[in-house]
């Protein structure tokens, strides 16, 4: 499991180099052939017995912020990268740019707020990052427009086999794939660590174009809302119920035969699983299955609470079960004629 290392790296969509460099290093350690394509995806090849072209994908990028302006007093204005819920920004510690300049997203003191303002999420254009600089010139020495901003959020193991970190969506998938590659399974598949999933599945399009898979297996962190006062039918997934298998989302109607087959593999191997009970959202599968002549896709995910915030919560059991399930699916492909 590489979750601690991976989630502590910065990799806002379009700026995934820290994650890319780490994964490349790991792949070279494992001795897995790989290359980086024109958009920055890592494409690794696990050689083995081949029945069809399989592409296993997880995205390296995470949601975050980007510097859009430095004001006359040296405060930093920013925009969201990917779907950030603006309610999660208030009072956070962040790191700006390649040099990881520390900063805070402040908020007006409650004493100064009008009754209307209290309790309301401030819109992004009213928020700013304070790095403690005294002037525009001082900020400009440390920060440029276009610098990416990541949340500072430690990896913590807590509760009953739970973890809290930022970017579990989708470093959980990256970690799972590295584990799968290190197993040296005798089944041929391409492992793709994609870029820019959070801003429109950009990397998955070009990787799928290059690989022309027959089957795509997307490994994700997905929405989980098993919180108090949310009804069962609205919670999408639940923690500790096993990896979630997608049936449909905004990007894909998953091939039902493949979905049922994956569920069967889980049942045969006594791996818990659940269906993702929502048709919203989307992931790299949307790009993969529509490329060139098209392909079959499935998506499996670790349920993550508070996704798209700086505190994702997931269960190690779900993660481990996901790794086992994908392994079994791949071995099954090996058997097939």
């Amino acid at each position: 499991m590489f979750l601690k290392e991976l989630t502590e790296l910065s990799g806002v969509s379009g700026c995934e180099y820290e994650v890319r460099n780490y994964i490349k290093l790991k792949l070279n350690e494992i001795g897995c052939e790989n290359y980086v394509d024109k958009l920055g995806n890592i494409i690794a090849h696990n050689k083995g017995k081949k029945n069809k072209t399989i592409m296993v994908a997880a995205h390296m990028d995470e949601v975050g912020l980007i510097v859009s302006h430095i004001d006359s007093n040296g405060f930093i204005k920013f925009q969201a990268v990917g779907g950030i819920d603006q309610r999660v920004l208030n009072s956070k510690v962040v790191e700006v740019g390649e040099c990881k300049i520390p900063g805070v997203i402040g908020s007006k003191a409650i004493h100064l707020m009008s009754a209307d303002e209290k309790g309301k999420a401030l819109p992004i254009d009213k928020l700013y990052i304070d790095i403690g600089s005294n002037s525009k010139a001082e900020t400009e020495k440390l920060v440029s427009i276009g610098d990416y901003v990541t949340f500072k959020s430690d990896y913590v193991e807590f509760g009953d086999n739970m973890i809290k970190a930022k970017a579990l969506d989708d470093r959980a998938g990256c970690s799972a794939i590295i584990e799968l590659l290190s197993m040296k399974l005798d089944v041929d598949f391409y492992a793709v660590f994609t870029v820019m999933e959070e801003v429109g599945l950009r990397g998955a399009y070009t990787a799928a174009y290059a690989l022309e898979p027959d089957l795509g297996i997307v490994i994700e962190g997905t929405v989980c809302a098993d919180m108090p006062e949310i009804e069962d039918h609205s919670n999408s997934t639940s923690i500790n119920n096993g990896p979630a298998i997608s049936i449909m989302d905004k990007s894909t109607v998953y091939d039902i035969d493949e979905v049922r087959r994956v569920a069967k593999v889980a049942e045969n191997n006594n791996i818990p699983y659940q269906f993702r009970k929502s048709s919203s959202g989307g992931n790299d599968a949307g790009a993969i299955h529509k490329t060139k002549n098209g392909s079959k896709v499935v998506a499996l995910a670790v349920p993550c609470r508070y996704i798209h915030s700086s505190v994702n919560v997931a269960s190690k059991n779900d993660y481990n079960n996901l790794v086992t399930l994908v392994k079994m699916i791949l071995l099954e492909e090996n058997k097939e004629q």
Partner: protein
Amino acid sequence: MIKNFLFEVCSNHYVSGYEHTNGNILKKYFQPYTDSFEEDNIGSYIFKSTGTNSTKIMLAAHSDEIGLMITSILDNGFLRFTSVGGINAASLVAQDIIIYGKESIFGVIGIKPPHLTPEEEREKPLKTKDLFIDTGLSKKELEKKVSIGDIAVIKRQPLALQNSIISSRQLDDKAGIAVMLVVAHELKKISHNSNIYYAATAQEETGCRGSATASYKINPDIGIVLDVGFGLTPDMPPETASLGKGPAVAIGGRFNPKLTKKFIEVCKQYNYEFQYEASPSSSGTDTESLQINREGIPCILLSIPLRYMHTSVETIDLKDIETTGKAIARFINEIDNSDLEEILCF
């Protein structure tokens, strides 16, 4: 030359899907600087200037403009219409219109007089479906000349304002095409090793369509996309790029970081003014389709600051076009003299 070019193209129409109607003007200006011409199947024009190596650089600016399309012929010479691309209905009120039917027909878009419009209705945002083109013809006459699906535009002659500022319809993105012309002109002087493709892409305003097909056809090593960006006015946020201070260089996931950095270095080294623009997700420009074409095309996006976007009085500074064109020519020259693979390598 640039001003002449812009005044000439902007006096003709290039509504999305019908860019070819006045495509000859583009040919007239680009062919002296290029060796071959081809089209994709959607209506993009591709001019090629052959180089001495195998590198392919694609410049892209969209040739189409937003416009109107007739949807019904009504009694008393009125026409119902819809927009082609995103138009603010409020900017259509009280405008002169030309409808391109069997012949060019003049019309106006009027509005119900305020005396007859209740207060609350006057406050409401206007919609295209509430507006009509008045042609002054009888329905019988009109039906002979106009049919459903005919296109129309606001009648507007390009206008020179103070200094080097001009105002016209469709400077989005004829300004970008003008930049390509400056590049072609400059490269003729300093020569180039790479093969340069000047693509005037069709149907950007309706969904970046022509750039998808044109880039598939060209299959370039890198793409330089030229479009317009918001220019600073009193009602815009302070980070907006200003007119006359050079192109806004886009930074975000859609744009190759090292190629962008290289362009910025060139600007700094040769003293070309430029500005930054943070653009983290969809830029709504041709980079949308270019970047993910085939196995991917590393792109940069340069925007000419423009005020009053998608109206008939779009306003730009000609200086920005000169600066951008010259900077790109220099940038191409630098790429010719360095290892492109090295630049693009992650």
